[in-house]
């Protein structure tokens, strides 16, 4: 904790400051922005996954009522100075240049082809139907495993193949490990693509001032400053002429990291028609216009000893990047082998990661980004070994844990785990679940011919990004400005722009405790680049870790200066000189040592800071501090989860009976916010295990293209989650925080998958791919036979 500080708010269940605003409809989402003279644009998207564009006739659309302008992809692209920038380019990687719109060729269903701007949303939409595009359909690439084969159509002729990169490496000596093994387990594991579906779809509003050349862009983004950097570059404008605003953002899960074409189109159209313009994605459009997540085929081999020790692993991972790489999307799959050792001490690992381009919408970060895919591999491997050695999955895990005295621990894949105690988390989860009783219950259920399964996982992940090297050019810092005004109230500007996490609350808690001011006196401002000068943003569970610490660092400066001002005020009061060392800040009061009734308040200090008449000679007015903070290392939260499932043998339906989630995110600032992240995270991870999957046909059409076809879980499908935690503070930041945004999602998928496979294990089932839909399980039962009363157990 913050050294020497009595904390009052840190760790307590302070209600979310932002909720009254959001619940009563006073939130300021992008689509809420209304400007005088607003025009609306709609985007014509390619209905083909791969097609040459031989011509576009926009004349009828342009002549349609209320239409202000129609621009083709080529016309929009011409108005850009540069193509999309990519960050963290991998060695030997090849990639296509990407401009905001398809001009001569469309490479996925949904790629923007033309835009209409009109005086109403409906008129813009109507005019789309009047644009005639002459498409010449081309052969389509959808399968990631064969995409780079020589006989496949090549999407970008200049590249010669669809291979983005193939990166092979190894740590230790995997061949030796396999030679020394008692056995090898192997599996092909599928990570279907997922469609993020935040509650708020994407939207953008742009306003352009011709006289100054200044533009304002309201946009649904997790990182307004990166958006500004990318958009300014591409539009050929200086950064200081582009203001990006994202006040309230209704979820993102990674899909709102990218700068999308619509941001650039918006600014271009606002300039073109000399009116503010707005675009808001509808839900169906979201499915084909906002990047997807996951999408891997994983070939996994693991060598083990009879006693359950994991000796080594060999991984081959295909990643379906979609039609283009964006921001750092191509790097995400490389996190999978990096995290593949999980919480275990295995040192001999070889891996190949193959990123390919296909005729699908680009892939990008999605809650966990690369780490869920890793946790899935290693946690399935642990169960495969347990199955092969006839040992309990819990025992196999314990056998392989990195011991708690080994931290900081450098993994063979080059990660430095900050701190952990996996046994403690597992012990707690087992106790809450009543693990031994559950196993007894399972035995009895099997005797009865029923299918019951218990899934156990212990996982870790990496978050709290930076340092800088960890984000490959996006910046590894966070910025904070802390300002005390003449009334003694505090304003905090944070660069870590949230999208639903509740930082207005948690950051205010930190500041209130640290400065000793009432929680209500702290305002946290974010999401406007003209107010918050710089920032990186909210992704990779970095906000509290990096953004929160930046605030503490600014507070240090504030406290120093405030104490000097307080000393001057007290000297004036006491008509005596004081040793500044004797003036301390406690409970929000600056007092003189041993004279508790001689104090000044933040309001007095704040007032004097600007009034300035009593300031010491060498002191300048003002009480405001700016800090940039970059962490020295990454953080590694961890968790132990247990799921209990039952399977209806007639239909294959899986029902989740219990879910125990013990998570360790280091210091907890606000348990309610942490639990909120865990609840939502579990829902997403469980949804991934049981329901969610984007499905394409051979033509590259997204078949699961709406919420009527793409299943996401309903709250009523879950049992009450049983949450608890252990607290292992991180040594890499003064808060001791580790980040909790993604942990539960990462753990939940393999936990439920393990539970389902466990339910079927006595029938000889060792692996089933996700999503474990009713039909898929029914098919497994068809081939492996049902569980019968008195049968196998």
């Amino acid at each position, binding site marked *: 904790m913050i050294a020497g500080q009595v904390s009052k708010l840190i760790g307590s269940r302070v209600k979310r400051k932002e909720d009254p605003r959001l619940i009563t409809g006073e939130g300021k989402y992008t689509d809420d922005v209304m400007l005088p003279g607003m025009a609306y644009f709609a985007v014509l998207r390619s209905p083909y996954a791969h097609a040459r564009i031989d011509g576009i006739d926009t004349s009828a659309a342009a002549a349609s009522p209320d239409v202000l302008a129609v621009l083709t992809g080529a016309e929009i692209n011409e108005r850009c100075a540069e193509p999309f920038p990519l960050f963290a380019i991998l060695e030997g990687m090849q990639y296509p240049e990407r401009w905001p719109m398809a001009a001569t060729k469309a490479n996925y269903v949904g790629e923007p082809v033309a835009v209409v701007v009109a005086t109403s949303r*409906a008129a813009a939409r*109507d005019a789309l139907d009047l644009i005639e595009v002459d498409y010449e359909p081309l052969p389509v690439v959808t399968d990631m495993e064969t995409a780079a084969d020589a006989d496949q159509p090549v999407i970008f002729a200049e590249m010669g193949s669809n291979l983005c990169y193939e990166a092979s490496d190894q740590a230790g000596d995997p061949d030796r490990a396999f030679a020394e093994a008692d056995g090898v387990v192997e599996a092909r594991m599928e990570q279907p693509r997922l469609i993020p579906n935040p509650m708020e779809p994407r939207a953008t509003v742009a306003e352009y001032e011709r006289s100054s050349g200044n533009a304002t862009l309201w946009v649904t983004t997790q990182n307004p400053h990166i958006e500004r950097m990318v958009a300014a570059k591409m539009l050929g404008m200086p950064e200081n002429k582009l203001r990006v605003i994202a006040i309230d953002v209704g979820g993102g899960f990674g899909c709102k990291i990218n700068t999308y074409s619509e941001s650039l189109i918006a600014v271009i159209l606002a300039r073109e028609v000399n009116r503010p313009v707005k675009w808001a994605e509808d839900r169906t459009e979201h499915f084909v216009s906002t990047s997807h997540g996951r999408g891997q085929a994983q070939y996994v081999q693991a060598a083990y000893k009879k006693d359950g020790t994991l000796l080594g692993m060999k991984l081959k991972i295909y990643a379906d990047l979609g039609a283009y790489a964006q921001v750092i999307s191509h790097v995400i799959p490389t996190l999978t082998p990096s995290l593949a050792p999980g919480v275990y001490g295995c040192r001999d690992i070889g891996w190949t990661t193959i990123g390919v381009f296909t005729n699908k919408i680009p892939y990008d970060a999605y809650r966990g980004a690369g780490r869920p895919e890793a946790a899935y591999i290693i946690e399935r491997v642990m169960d495969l070994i347990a199955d092969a050695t006839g040992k309990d999955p819990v025992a196999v895990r314990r056998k392989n844990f990195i011991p708690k005295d080994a931290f900081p621990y450098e993994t063979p894949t080059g990660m430095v785990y900050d701190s952990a105690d996996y046994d403690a988390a597992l012990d707690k989860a087992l106790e809450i679940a009543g693990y031994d009783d559950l196993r007894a219950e399972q035995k009895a259920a099997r005797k009865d011919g029923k299918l019951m399964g218990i899934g156990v996982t212990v996982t870790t992940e990496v978050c709290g990004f930076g340092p800088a090297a960890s984000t490959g050019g996006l910046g590894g810092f966070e910025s904070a400005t802390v300002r005390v005004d003449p009334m003694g109230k505090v304003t905090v500007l944070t660069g870590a722009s949230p999208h639903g996490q509740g930082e207005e609350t948690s950051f205010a808690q930190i500041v209130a405790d640290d400065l000793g001011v009432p929680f209500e006196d702290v305002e946290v401002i974010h999401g406007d680049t003209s107010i918050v000068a710089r920032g990186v943003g909210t992704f990779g569970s970095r906000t509290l870790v990096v953004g929160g610490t930046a605030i503490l660092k600014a507070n240090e400066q504030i406290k120093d200066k405030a104490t000097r001002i307080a000393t001057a005020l007290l000297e004036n009061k006491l008509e005596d000189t004081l040793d500044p060392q004797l003036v301390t800040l406690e409970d929000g009061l600056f007092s003189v040592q041993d004279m508790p009734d001689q104090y000044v308040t933040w309001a007095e200090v704040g007032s004097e800071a600007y009034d300035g008449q009593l300031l010491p000679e060498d002191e300048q007015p003002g009480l405001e501090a700016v800090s940039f903070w970059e962490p020295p290392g990454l953080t590694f939260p961890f968790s132990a989860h247990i799921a209990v499932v039952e399977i209806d043998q007639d239909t294959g339906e899986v029902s989740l009976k219990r879910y125990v989630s013990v998570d360790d995110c280091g210091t907890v600032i606000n348990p309610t916010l942490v639990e909120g992240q865990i609840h939502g995270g579990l829902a997403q991870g469980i949804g991934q295990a049981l329901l969610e999957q984007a499905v394409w046909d051979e033509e590259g059409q997204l078949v699961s293209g709406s919420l*009527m076809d793409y299943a996401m879980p309903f709250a009523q499908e879950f049992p009450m989650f049983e949450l608890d935690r252990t607290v292992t503070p991180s040594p890499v930041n003064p808060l001791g925080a580790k980040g909790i945004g993604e942990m539960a999602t990462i753990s939940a998928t393999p936990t439920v998958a393990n539970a389902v496979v466990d339910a079927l294990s006595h029938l000889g089932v060792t692996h089933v791919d996700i999503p474990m839909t*009713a*039909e898929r399980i029914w098919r497994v039962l068809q081939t492996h036979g049902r569980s019968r009363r008195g049968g196998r157990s």
Partner: protein
Amino acid sequence: MIPQAFDYYAPTSVADALRLLRRHGDEAKLLAGGHSLLPIMKLRLSTPQCLIDLGRISELRFISEADDGGLAIGAMSTYHDIKNSALVQERVPALAAAAGEVGDVQVQNKGTIGGSLAHADPAGDFPALALALNFELVTATARSGRTIAIDRFFRDLLTTALRPNEILTEIRVPALAAGTGVAYKKLPNKASHYAVVGVAAAITVGDDGVCTDARIGVTGAGPTAVRARNTERILKGKHVDAAVIRRAANRAAANIEDLNDDLHASAEYREHLTTVFAARAIEEALSRAG
């Protein structure tokens, strides 16, 4: 998700609605709860020039006792109305319960029994119940009206016996014969909560424990809801025990041609589910019968 422009009328009587329907002919569509029609309009798969909203016609929204002791339900009664009606709960509890399983609360608040039957979604819940409960559908046209037996109502995918100039006004649910038990069982589609397959069973058992009548409606399996006549035949005249149920249920998909085969379920799985849910519905109906 913006539909093509359309004119909108909100008549307050069936007579006015019929007049509008006659005036606008093929270009008009009746709007009930809008939960099937508006989504397809937003996707521009349906582009009517004119909508005639039945929502303000109070004479279409009622639930009352019919002369034969059965129920008369106005076409514009919502699932919510049906689920919460004391009369329905008393006379045909399985119908009230099924209304509570449709979609979600929003769908139940807006969707109507008339709209559900007129739309004839192959995965809709009420079509199965309509067949099992032997609904009679009362319609009105500008000239007159008629009563359509449910067995003649569902014609093909999204196609019914209703003519374009006809309004479905009332649904009659005949009084259940003494000793009848009713049940509806479905596997909900995890995305929409429509039925992947749903089976409704109405089974009448005499004092001697012999099944005297059985009507089984299956939805989700094929292009329209259908009766599982083979299953009914096996049940009728028998003392229904576990073996009979199994034999009967196994035939539930026998007369369904063109089993649906899509993202949500293969034809093979649907065929299997039909037998599973037929057995479950029959078992539950039996437990309430006699």
